[in-house]
């Protein structure tokens, strides 16, 4: 079945450093979504990408969808302590009747 893999699993950065997490699918995706989960909290929707090669920005966050629609990345510029949490990608492929498949997440720790 369809799998969505994320790397790295954990990342520790110094405040002010940049951070990137990568998401790879075993099959072509129709769209990719990104969620953030704060420690002890619930996932919160950040963004959805639909088009091949699409790039979207939210303040210090930059989201990309690969040309082949099989991978995606989230880049945070100049991390802050408020960026701490786990970032999940979730994709929809044609093989799973439209349901989202979540990656295992990347947990970001930011040292002040």
């Amino acid at each position: 079945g369809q799998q969505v893999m994320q790397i790295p699993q954990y990342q520790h950065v110094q405040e002010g450093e940049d951070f990137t997490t990568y998401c790879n699918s075993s099959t072509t995706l129709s769209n990719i979504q990104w969620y953030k989960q704060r420690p002890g909290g619930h996932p919160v929707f950040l963004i959805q990408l639909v088009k091949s090669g699409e790039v979207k920005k939210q303040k210090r966050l930059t989201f990309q969808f690969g040309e082949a629609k099989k991978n995606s990345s989230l880049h945070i510029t100049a991390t802050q302590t408020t960026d701490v949490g786990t970032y999940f990608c979730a994709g929809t492929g044609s093989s799973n009747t439209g349901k989202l498949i979540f990656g295992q997440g990347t947990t970001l720790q930011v040292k002040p």
Partner: protein
Amino acid sequence: NAGVTQTPKFRILKIGQSMTLQCTQDMNHNYMYWYRQDPGMGLKLIYYSVGAGITDKGEVPNGYNVSRSTTEDFPLRLELAAPSQTSVYFCASSPPASGIQGEQYFGPGTRLTVT
């Protein structure tokens, strides 16, 4: 709007007991979902519903049942609880305009321990 609400927040069950996790949304969303999240893992879909009276299995439905008698409510039933069902359970919903592939709004979760 309260969004997606879940009760209880925490629960400890003994092996073999049963319970119902409640989920309610007040956003008039027709799509609703139940996920479980194990430590260090992503979310696994248990069951989902595209509208009142319609439910379907996700990736990990064994040991669970659902019903959807109203648009607002989507309870998850655990029969004969097992230690493998120790997890955090999240309910989520999607608005009708975005379809089953649309963004999901999550409830605060229920932390369940089976001992």
